[in-house]
């Protein structure tokens, strides 16, 4: 119409791009975890299913486990959920959840509706525990070895690719995979 509307038009275009960018955020992060190769933080947190019971890191010693940080307010976590159920079905490594800054009642409903892939879910409503793990955002997944060392961290949703390329090879010693 007139040239004075041009800046507004350009801005609207940019806003649309930014909106798409936010909604469709990429799952690949660029942040290296300071925890990689270091012992996982020890914790003792209430169990989501039974708050009188504690989920403790000492009980997890001696086994591989995947530590998955999630929350019901996290849209990406819902997308990730199907992958977690697949991981559970594979039965190779147990999933331990950390329900982060969340309402436990909503979290229970979520698990009831979508299925529960976790061996146990620890509740971290204050976000205190996630600080120790250096969590930037949900979802994040840590692979912890039997010695309690974090060997891999996935920022963003766990993908098929990460599962087959990064996690499975670490779980199986090379010669066992060959035989």
């Amino acid at each position, binding site marked *: 119409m*007139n040239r*004075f*509307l041009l*800046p*507004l038009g350009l*801005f*609207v275009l940019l*806003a649309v*791009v*930014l*909106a*798409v*960018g*936010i909604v*469709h*955020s*990429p*799952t*690949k*992060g*660029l*942040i290296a975890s*300071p925890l990689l190769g*270091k012992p996982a933080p020890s914790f003792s947190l209430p169990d989501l299913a039974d708050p009188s019971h504690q989920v403790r890191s000492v009980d997890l010693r001696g086994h591989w486990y995947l530590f998955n940080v999630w929350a019901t*307010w*996290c*849209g*990406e976590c819902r997308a990730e959920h199907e992958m977690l159920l697949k991981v559970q079905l594979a039965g190779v490594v147990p999933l331990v959840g950390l329900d982060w800054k969340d309402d436990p009642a909503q979290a229970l409903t979520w698990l009831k509706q979508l299925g529960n892939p976790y061996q146990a879910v620890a509740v971290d409503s*204050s*976000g*205190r525990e996630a*600080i*120790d793990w*250096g969590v*930037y*955002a*949900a979802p994040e997944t840590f692979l912890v070895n039997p010695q309690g060392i974090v060997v891999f961290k996935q*920022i*963003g949703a766990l993908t098929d690719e990460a599962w087959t390329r990064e996690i499975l090879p670490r779980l199986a010693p090379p010669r066992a995979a060959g035989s």
Partner: protein
Amino acid sequence: MLPELGQFALVLALLLAALQAFYGIAGPAMGRERWMAAVIPAVAGQAVMVATAVACLVASFVGNDFSVSYVAENSNSALPLFYRVAALWGAHEGSLLLWIFLLAAWTVAVAIGATRLPPRFAARVLGVLGVVSFGFLLFTLATSNPFLRLDPPAPDGRDLNPILQDPGLAVHPPILYTGYVGFAVAFAFACAAMLEGRLDQQWARWTRPWTTVAWSFLTCGIALGSFWAYYELGWGGFWFWDPVENASFMPWLVGTALVHSLAVTDKRGLFKSWTLLLAILAFSLSMLGTFLVRSGVLVSVHSFAADPRRGIFILAFLIVMIGGALVLYAWRAPALKSTAGFELGARESFLLFNNVLLVIAAGTVFAGTLAPLISDALGLGTLSVGPPYFNPTFMISMLPLLALLSVGIHASWKRGRLTDSQRALFFTLVAAAVVGAGLAFGWYARGRLLTFVGATLGVWIILSSLVDPIDRWRRGLSLSRAVLGMTVAHLGIALAVIALTTVQSFTVERDVALAPGATASVAGYEFRFEGVQSVEGPNYDAIGGTFMVTRHGEAVAVLRPQKRQYWVQHQVTSETAITMHHGNNLLIALGEDLKAGGRWSVRIQVRPLVSLVWFAAFIMALGGALAASDRRYRAAAGALAPARTASAAEGAR
């Protein structure tokens, strides 16, 4: 107790900002004197509340109150006191609080200066600033509250990010933010003018000093940031075109254009709508920069998911602020016709070229910065754009800009004739070319064409900038601070150009493996590795290397770079060691222990004139400060007296 007090103060500040915005905008619109009178108390109250909130958060940091989540995440009891205070702006939440605090400070300054403005206009300016402040306060309280508690409290904090534990960090963000926030004032003046539907030369005269001061702060902030990156990050460079740097550079480019365009509006009453648009653009980029840097939308869009509301809120806020201003622009700007004309060779033309080229430069940086985001949003995969894109595209607009500068300052307003200064221009160009060739092919002996061009342009700007001041001085005429400031700022640009081309052309970088007792020679200097020993800091362990630097057998310096391992975050940082010698900047960074006979990998760099880059930036900022302090801006009060009575009478009607 203190965190709750701080939060309460922030809520009160939010309410006062709402009042300030409402009374400031509705008061003049409805012609209510009393509403307009309520604006100043709201400004003062808001400033007190924001200062209280900042004091509360600082007290929590100083007192190691790890029941506050933000303190637990960004501080530690072993952290030295100095950094416990600086940790306030070590992450997103506190940075926002700092932003709000600086905005309150600017607003108070404007309110004090506004006693010389017509009351309706002053109320509108403060009202628009109130809207900005309201938005930031709401964002902080809703999504990024720094006062949230942890229950149970953390036994100790996670420590401040080690790379931020440096004196450079402590001063760099506040200064940078002062610049960012300062453009809010230019933005508010622009919006107020559009609300009034009137924009005259007087308006430009009011806006100019504020804009220039903000620009000076931004210049200093960018230089400090670049200096900090140079010696702390240890990557061996001072500018990387990374998104965070670009976020501060784009408002600077547009701000520079705005400073020049305001000059035309002030002197000739031209470029009105263009000036408005630049004012909106400069502040929009500042806001975008603030968000990009601290929320990490570009570094990793993923960070937004930390709280999905954050990204949405930011976008909504930007749409309201920028979109609102642009709607106002589309509606009101067409009425602001400029009546005067000018000839092609007149100074106006050169300033128009300056503006266009600066905006193109900002546009190329903007495109390069957002390209990864856009390609990702369109599902084209992730891509990164680096120096191979930025360096040449940026130069395409910068070289003509620098070439036109010397001619532009000698052009006269309105008329396109250069006769008086043609001879001076020609002689300075010849002299500059001789000096440039000497520098490029004689002094350093292995110059390239770019070195010659850069050095010539730089020297030409210096010589031609000095022609008029020297002429006036010889005739015993006084030099106004505005002209002096302009000259100094242009000298700064010239020095920066010379320094940048020299650094770019003659830097020597070597990565070597050295055993204790071994010597590396780089660019005529010998670096003898004496060995390493362990060092203990307040909150880190370090390995320190010792290097004896000599030149032709003469001792130059002893350099002690370190590799630090911070206790809490287990992060390793490399502390470079730097020394100056005859204009050359020598830098050593310790790499890895190669586990072979005590051999270490070491990065050695010799950069000529790199310090001049930062020095030149401070010269530019000094020029800005000089220009802003010119008498004519302060004398505006006298000229305004009739206007004030007129508008008071209008208000009384």
